């Protein structure tokens, strides 16, 4: 009898299925990577100067800050939440950094920790409100979005240029590799954030709690997982990442401005979702998010290289490329919707 059960149980893994379910969840990731390569190939054929490693590195240079922000958004989305405040938090961080450094002469080394703290603290606050009062994250983070952007304006409606030599120095430093290829310091930071996030999500208790929470919140609670603190923590992570993204953007732009990073929350969410994370939570990979960021960046690069598009055609082409990408991604990953 008991052998019967054991063998039946062994059969539970669908012995005839060719791909294990675990691998199956990674298919979208692989497909996305392949499509990205295809896109790069097509670009190389079509445009002069496209086929160069620097184009790829520029993708990182130009999107490092978005990557950091999107990594933060991934944490939140994995729990089934959403954080609309990230774009405004980025703007607030740039404004705050520039304001403190320029108008108050604070040293950058003091400003950056402070800005990161502000980001993490405001994320924590939002998470706390969401958890304690059971309010939908959409509204709370929308209020956070208004507030952060509003604070930018109250600090300064004008763009604040940073002439501080340390900041400018970091911003203009290029790390050269072989063949005259270079990246900027923010790229290194962004990649470090990505790796850290990967380790945290896949190899720490907190990370696994994030997935469990996204899978089923009430179950996670009944399983005795620290639902409240995990929830608060993901918003804190998101706040921290957007503050860091803001710092990186400050380096990128060498300025603080209330209108920076307009709509970046949508870019971050889109990158995450294109990277295969389900908006309903519980499923996704942070490496996918990186691919999502690259997809958005690649589309932008292709459009820039095209160089003949009028303003509206730019939009239409971006939309069309996105459409082609998404549809191929879906068709190649198997027709079943990933949800349910």
């Amino acid at each position, binding site marked *: *009898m*008991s052998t*019967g*059960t*054991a*063998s*039946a*149980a*062994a*059969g*539970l*893994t*669908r*012995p*005839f*299925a060719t791909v*294990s*379910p*675990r691998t199956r*969840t990674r298919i979208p990731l692989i497909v996305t990577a392949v499509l990205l390569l295809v896109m790069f190939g097509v670009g190389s054929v079509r445009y002069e100067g496209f086929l160069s490693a620097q184009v790829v590195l520029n993708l990182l240079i130009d999107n490092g800050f978005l990557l950091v922000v999107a990594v933060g958004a991934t944490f939140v989305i994995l729990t089934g939440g959403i954080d609309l405040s990230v774009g405004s938090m980025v703007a607030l961080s740039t404004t705050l950094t520039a304001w403190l450094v320029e108008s108050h002469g604070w040293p950058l080394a003091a400003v950056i920790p402070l800005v990161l703290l502000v980001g993490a603290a405001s994320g924590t606050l939002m998470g706390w409100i969401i958890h304690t009062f059971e309010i939908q994250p959409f509204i709370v983070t929308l209020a956070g979005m208004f507030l952060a952007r509003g604070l930018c304006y109250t600090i300064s409606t004008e763009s604040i240029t940073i002439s501080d030599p340390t900041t400018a120095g970091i911003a203009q430093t290029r790390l050269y590799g072989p063949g005259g290829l270079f990246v900027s310091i923010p790229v290194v930071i962004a990649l470090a954030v990505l790796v850290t996030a990967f*380790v945290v999500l896949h*190899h*720490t*208790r907190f990370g*696994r*709690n994030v*997935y*469990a929470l*996204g*899978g*089923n919140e*009430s*179950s*996670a*609670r*009944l*399983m*005795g*997982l*620290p*639902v*409240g603190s995990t929830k608060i923590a993901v918003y804190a992570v998101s706040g921290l990442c957007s503050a860091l993204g803001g710092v990186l953007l400050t380096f990128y732009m060498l300025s603080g401005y209330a209108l920076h990073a307009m709509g970046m929350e949508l870019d971050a969410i889109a990158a995450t979702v294109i990277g295969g994370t389900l908006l309903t939570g*519980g*499923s996704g990979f942070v490496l996918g998010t990186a691919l999502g960021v690259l997809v958005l960046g690649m589309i932008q690069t292709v459009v820039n290289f095209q160089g003949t598009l009028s303003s509206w055609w730019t939009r239409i082409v971006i939309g069309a490329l996105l459409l082609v990408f998404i549809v191929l991604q879906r068709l190649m990953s198997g027709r079943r919707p990933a949800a349910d």
Partner: protein
Amino acid sequence: MATPPTPRPTDSGDPQPVLEAQGIRKQFPGVLALDGVALRLFPGEVHALMGENGAGKSTLIKVLTGVHPADGGTILVDGRPHVFADPLQAQQAGVSTVYQEVNLCPNISVAENVLIGREPRRFGLIHWSAMRQRAAELLTELDLGLDVTSLLGSHSLAVQQLVAIVRAVDVSAKVLVLDEPTSSLDREEVAQLFTLVRRLRDRGVAILFVTHFLDQVFDLCDRVTILRNGRLEGEYPIGELTPVTLVQRMIGGELATLDQLSVRAHEEAAQRATSEPFLQARRLTRTGSVEPYDLDIHAGEVIGLAGLLGSGRTEVARLLFGADSADAGEVSIEGRKVLLRTPRHAIARGIAFCSENRKSEGLVGELTVRENIVLALQAARGWTRPLSRTKQDELARHWIQALDIRPGDPEAQVRHLSGGNQQKVLLARWLLTAPRLLILDEPTRGIDIGAKAEIQKLVARLAGEGTAVLFISAELEEVLRLSHRIAVLRDHRMVATLTNDDTVTPERLLTTIATGADS
């Protein structure tokens, strides 16, 4: 009414309960779910918590373990007043619980579901290989040889239930609470679970056990606390009760219909088998879940599906309903070939399927009881032909009464109903579509004995009226009692179809299930 509780004199000699509740009150909007309930759990005992569907068992457990705050009363842990703010605190204090519905995360692996929150770590990071190994070891304790890296959601409900139990047991708690852990388990798994529970009891763990199976109570438990309508009926040593008195105390009266259906309608079966079958499946198969099978179902016939846990009973049913689409083979209904690609197709041809997994595949929690009941009928009619509100009310009231769903308010949100009552709602939904073929996958899961007898009678009556029924149940007795014929599954393969006559004894059926061959 209650006999004064006496601590078990035999064990440990420790008269102090490890967990005690006094005068617990819990009020939900419109429902006083618990009213002055008391409970005592001593180390080294298995304590049964009994009561009808909706009596308040699960609520009591949730109040004790910090899921719901109590509205009144005291909870004592080791003799000191203590309240858990959430299940995490309960777990930290040594109270480990398996709640009624499977409460695990379908999106992470089996190993993680067993060990999440207590993962083995190395250098602060999760030690994955140690974790997989540990999980696999724990699962073999229940003789469950799963691939622990597979996603939990890919497994059948029974397997998930076992994983939940394994998780709770591993906490090595002072108190283990099991809310209907056996509701979809086979007798083999039940036996294994009981061995495990006894072992824990002997180690001094206090076990609170909720079930609707009387034999399990008498088999395993030392004492019983009985709830009725949210009130404490009493606490008894098991020796003081007989099955009949236990039931009487639960329902507060005589159970007239406890004598179950005795007739086995095998003569009819023989006679039906000669007529043309309502549904005929030929070489129906789906890669990875069921190997090709043939099945005939006649009108008015109850076919039981028997098999071990995970043998593929649910999968067979899902194919017939189009819930999963078949890779090969064909189905004909009344002689005409049909394609059952989606549930819609099947429903249009008079097939109904009551899923075993009421939480994720059955009920729409936010909707009311009324809406859940009329949902299938309404879906079949399409949105342009709405059932009028009066008609809906009428149907809802009829079935609430017929199945004794409580609370009887058709406008209550279905997720607030007790587990057994939810199951009844699900049954009502399909019964009222008056299907030609009714597929019932574990229809009596979590249903109390009184209601179970009612449902069995209902199935028999429906069959008598000409409905074909495909009946899946982990309870062999139930299958034997109701079915005209029994199809046996083993390892995703249909190995035998037995006509349920006097020669089919439980033993013979068990052998067939185990060996795959009819002796």
